[in-house]
């Protein structure tokens, strides 16, 4: 079942066929999945148009809960977007040997999650058709946007991140596109020829390509960190009890990476099953990702505890009202968050049995994402519902409109992934090849273990 074995049997052309199976065969299942997802997405878009035409009254928002599901989804998807690029960049820089099969899926997840998440701030505007007031450009009104608003930082940061992530995804894909170009025919050939931009794989091309990729990875990490910090500042810069916290930026970044890794695991498990990549996405990958997730569980738990402890212990009146509402109105949400984010994943991920079982990891990753959704909801809603002035307190529950956005955002994300898998190389073929090229199987006793050709580039034992 090792990679080596597989390559020996099939040769490099066969390897390509296996890895890009998603591009090659269009099954009925694909059409069905794409159709259903498209229908769900289109329905959500229809609901959005309806909301745009009638007004935000169709949501469950109110005074004081002026932000609701749409902002929760925004933070959730931006958070989810995090790991992809970040993990990939970190893994690239540290040259983690097992990274290759994870890279592309993670990077694509970033781009798609950002695309989905980035829609929500625009959707939630009262007058969406005037969103361009936020864009700094010379205009006849002679009035520019207010850069002192965290929303504008957000806009700048997210556009930077989205641009960077797309470039990163694309740049990482170029050798694979070149491979695809040489295997494809018809319109695909033209597409891949264009996208591969004439990449051949000559020695100097590879050298420069590696330098550029490393640069990308180095640049994208601080952007990723800044983006989620700024998303957290959307909240932390406000004078709202429960939001106004100095720890928010690292806490959000940690939470984002946490949910992102869980998202990567979910996506990987899906890809593995759907495109029969069992040979490439092995238990080892899930084990490693599981360890990463465990680390993030602990980090997240630590951050949450320290954030909670200070507000809880200091008992500032406003904050106290918020914290005590966790014990009453928002107890279910709080328990869901605590269970899904900590009580389940922590012991489960400590067990190697769980980490090495792909269905279990899939389940854990889903649980973590449910928990992270609850966490976002718990940040956005109760803080607003328990404002400074107790006379305006009010509850919040999403209406069918907002619930359809939840469904729609998931299906849009999945749809983008499904389309991506059909069009572009979904696995980092050249990275896998490179990994195979640099490792050889060596027998140590009864076991066959891969050994690495190049020690100086990082992967030790």
């Amino acid at each position, binding site marked *: 079942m090792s990679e080596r074995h597989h390559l020996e049997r099939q040769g490099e052309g066969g390897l390509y066929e296996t890895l890009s199976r998603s591009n090659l065969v269009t099954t009925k299942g694909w059409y069905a999945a794409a159709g259903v997802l498209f229908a769900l997405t289109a329905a959500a878009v229809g609901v959005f148009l309806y909301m745009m035409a009638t007004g935000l009254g169709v949501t469950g928002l109110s005074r004081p809960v002026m932000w609701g599901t749409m902002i929760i989804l925004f933070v959730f998807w931006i958070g989810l977007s995090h790991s992809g690029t970040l993990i990939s960049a970190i893994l690239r820089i540290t040259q983690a040997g097992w990274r290759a099969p994870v890279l592309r899926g993670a990077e694509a997840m970033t781009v798609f999650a950002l695309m989905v998440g980035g829609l929500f701030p625009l959707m939630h505007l009262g007058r969406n*058709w005037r969103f361009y007031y936020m864009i700094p450009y010379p205009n*006849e*009104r*002679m009035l520019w946007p207010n850069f002192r608003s965290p929303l504008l930082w957000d806009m700048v940061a997210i556009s930077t991140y989205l641009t960077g992530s797309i470039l990163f995804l694309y740049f990482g894909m170029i050798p694979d596109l070149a491979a695809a170009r040489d295997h494809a025919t018809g319109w695909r050939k033209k597409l891949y020829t264009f996208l591969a931009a004439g990449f051949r794989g000559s020695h100097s091309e590879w050298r420069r390509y590696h330098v550029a990729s490393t640069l990308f990875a180095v640049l994208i990490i601080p952007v990723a960190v800044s983006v989620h910090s700024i998303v957290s500042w959307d909240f932390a810069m406000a004078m709202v009890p429960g939001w106004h916290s100095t720890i928010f930026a690292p806490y959000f970044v940690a939470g984002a990476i946490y949910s992102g890794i869980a998202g990567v695991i979910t996506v990987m498990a899906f890809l593995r099953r759907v495109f029969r990549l069992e040979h490439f996405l092995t238990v080892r990958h899930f084990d490693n990702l599981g360890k990463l997730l465990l680390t993030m569980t602990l980090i997240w738990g630590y951050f949450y505890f320290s954030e909670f402890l200070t507000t809880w212990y200091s008992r500032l009146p406003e904050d106290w009202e918020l914290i005590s509402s966790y014990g009453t109105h928002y107890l279910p949400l709080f328990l869901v968050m605590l269970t899904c984010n900590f009580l389940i994943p922590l012991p489960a991920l400590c067990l190697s049995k769980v980490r090495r079982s792909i269905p279990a990891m899939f389940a854990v990753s889903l649980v973590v994402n449910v928990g992270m959704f609850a966490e976002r909801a718990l940040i956005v809603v109760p803080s607003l519902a328990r404002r400074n002035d107790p006379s305006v307190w009010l509850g919040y529950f999403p209406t069918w409109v907002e619930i359809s956005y939840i469904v729609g955002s998931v299906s849009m994300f999945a749809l983008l992934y499904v389309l991506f898998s059909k069009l572009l190389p979904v696995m980092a073929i050249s990275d896998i090849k490179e990994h195979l090229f640099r490792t050889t199987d060596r027998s140590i006793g009864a076991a066959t273990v891969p050994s690495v050709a190049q020690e100086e580039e990082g992967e030790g034992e």
Partner: protein
Amino acid sequence: MLRRRRQAALVASLLALLLLGGAAAASALTSQPIRYNHNVHVVAYKMDCRFCHSSAMKTASAGIPSVEKCMICHRVIAVDHPEIKKIAQYWKEKKPIPWNRVTELPDYTYFPHFRMVNAGIACLTCHPGMDKVDVAVQEQEFTMGFCLKCHKARGVSIECWSCHI
């Protein structure tokens, strides 16, 4: 509503400017119930704008002259002109003249004519060409930048609430 109106106005002005310049000018001539000639009144007879648009000095709106005011002169002047006869007819029936609005500001803009007039801003600053035309036209598009340029140059308030509530 406004958006639609804006778009409509945009489309209309584009059409007017690019495609149907001549036709639009022709339709402008028939667009008013009476073909009132600004040029004749302002240039030939040297009448002050504020004689007819008298509330420009006192209130936010410049005002449209009443039929009575038209008749002050046209009881004796050019009574045989076909357009003047129309005024006389309105006067006889004691009906107001249903003018069509030419210059327009968005609903959310407050423009006090009297502040401008009393500050010595010439009418033609914002209504250029009004002295040369026959039927009233809006040659100057009232964009926020147009207002601001003048406000900034004269050092008067550029607070948003000066014009928008």
